């Protein structure tokens, strides 16, 4: 497996103050990679830096063998990267259908109707809500609209910032199942997740970030079995 995304020696933050320092991370094609760690560890910052939403002071990001460190977000979307932010991730006054449509503007797919059909087959619940403003939907449905919008540009890599934040435990299962389905369609996923234990169960690889630095990386199973990880980040020994 070749690395689809490769982060090397990345230092970045906001307004000159580094939040992450010298972070390294490889994401192989067709895998689900999850970034976990305590609050303030710089997980979201890492994800945002990959998507050119923070100021990077050093290090490199490579995607599909190409250095994308200097590119702007609007240039990354056509290359095949999409992101779903943690909050405010739908356009509330636009209808569900319009939200999906906006997802195609930066990187128009060849056959828009086919892509829309394939996205809706992932989220069949949205079919009845297409004409409804996205702001009127429940939290879980909004998350589906947000993921649907991100998939409309047919990304190779999907970046998800805490896709289960604020959702009920029932939705947690649904979202994780959806991620497995999205991966089945050939999309690589890199996500930040607070529900570390459940996330590691579906993840191929996990990366633990502490204080803005790499702590440990490994397969989901290894990390679940690792004593130090379990004690510090997975809430006790009962994993």
């Amino acid at each position: 497996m070749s690395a689809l995304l490769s982060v090397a020696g990345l230092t970045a933050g906001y307004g000159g103050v580094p939040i992450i320092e010298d972070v390294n991370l490889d994401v192989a094609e067709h895998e689900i990679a999850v970034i976990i760690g305590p609050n303030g560890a710089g997980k979201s910052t890492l994800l945002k830096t990959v998507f050119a939403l923070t100021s990077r002071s050093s290090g490199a990001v490579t995607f599909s063998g190409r250095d994308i460190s200097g590119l702007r977000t609007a240039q990354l979307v056509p290359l095949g990267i999409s992101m779903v932010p943690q909050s405010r991730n739908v356009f509330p006054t636009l209808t569900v259908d319009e939200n999906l449509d906006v997802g195609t503007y930066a990187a128009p797919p060849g056959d828009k109707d086919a892509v829309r059909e394939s996205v809706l087959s992932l989220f069949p619940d949205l079919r009845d809500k297409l004409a409804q403003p996205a702001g009127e939907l429940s939290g879980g449905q909004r998350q589906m609209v947000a993921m649907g919008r991100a998939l409309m540009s047919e990304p190779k890599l999907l970046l998800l910032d805490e896709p289960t934040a604020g959702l009920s435990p029932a939705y947690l299962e649904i979202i994780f199942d959806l991620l497995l389905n999205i991966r089945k369609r050939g999309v690589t996923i890199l996500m930040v997740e607070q529900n570390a234990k459940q996330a590691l169960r579906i993840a191929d690889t996990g990366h633990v970030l502490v204080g803005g630095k790499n702590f440990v990386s490994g397969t989901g199973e290894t990390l679940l079995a690792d004593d130090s990880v379990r004690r510090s980040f997975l809430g006790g020994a009962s994993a």
Partner: protein
Amino acid sequence: MIDFINLYLVPGLTIGSVYALGAVGISMIFGILRFAHFAHGDLMTIGGYGVLTAVWFIPIHPLLLLPFGMALAIVAALAVDRFFYRPLRQLPTIYTVIASFGVALIFRSLAQLFWSSGNQVFVPGVRPPVVLFDTFRISALHAQVIILTLIIAVALHFFLTRSKLGRAMRAVSDEPELASVAGLDTERVVRWTWVIGAALAAAAGVFAGMDTSMHPNLGWNLLLAMFAAAVLGGIGKPMGAIAGGLIIGIAEETVTYTWFGGEPLISPSYKSAVAFFIMVALLLFRPQGLFKGRLL
């Protein structure tokens, strides 16, 4: 009843159309750039003078020369955005608000410099009203203004809901950060917001100038009523701004009707207070406006 329609309702719809077209730009600019554009009235003035000048060279009906006024207003708006507002974009929006006050003064002074401070008319002479069914006596200009405004409103609605650019504008107005994350070209959306806002302001300026006369303070005097219309419709809701403009225009004219007995309900000299009364009442009791706009 006929008098009410001829002398109050139709003139109310006419001035309401002017407010509506100006308020659309104010509302869209607030929605997308998050600042109250105080130079919008003077942008109307610039558009009005653009058509006035075109009429000197091409003596046909002024409304046919609207594109010249729109072009002048668009160039003016894009220029001030490029040189005055864009450099301030990353700072708190109060800087841009203050800058727009300055731009308003620049526009007004330029209008005085180029076109003098006096009143000027588009076409001299008195035109008799159009009589319909022997009862309705409506000025041809009022009919043209109302019909053109309705056409513009319908076109704007389809543009915002059906076209890619219109949807992108609503997306940026909804969640600017998500719009960037989705890879939308925000600066392009901003440019088109100015183009549309300025074009509609120019139309409003010409309508207002033809109804009375062109003078450098024309737009500035209408500005606060347009703000009231934008607030009434819900900030960031262009179609709401159109409704808000028409409501305020009709309210201003019809409060002077002899509703009870032979006296006007409110003396015509006080009618411009109606817009402000509506605006203050809204800000106190329903700040999101009629159509659930953004809170100021």
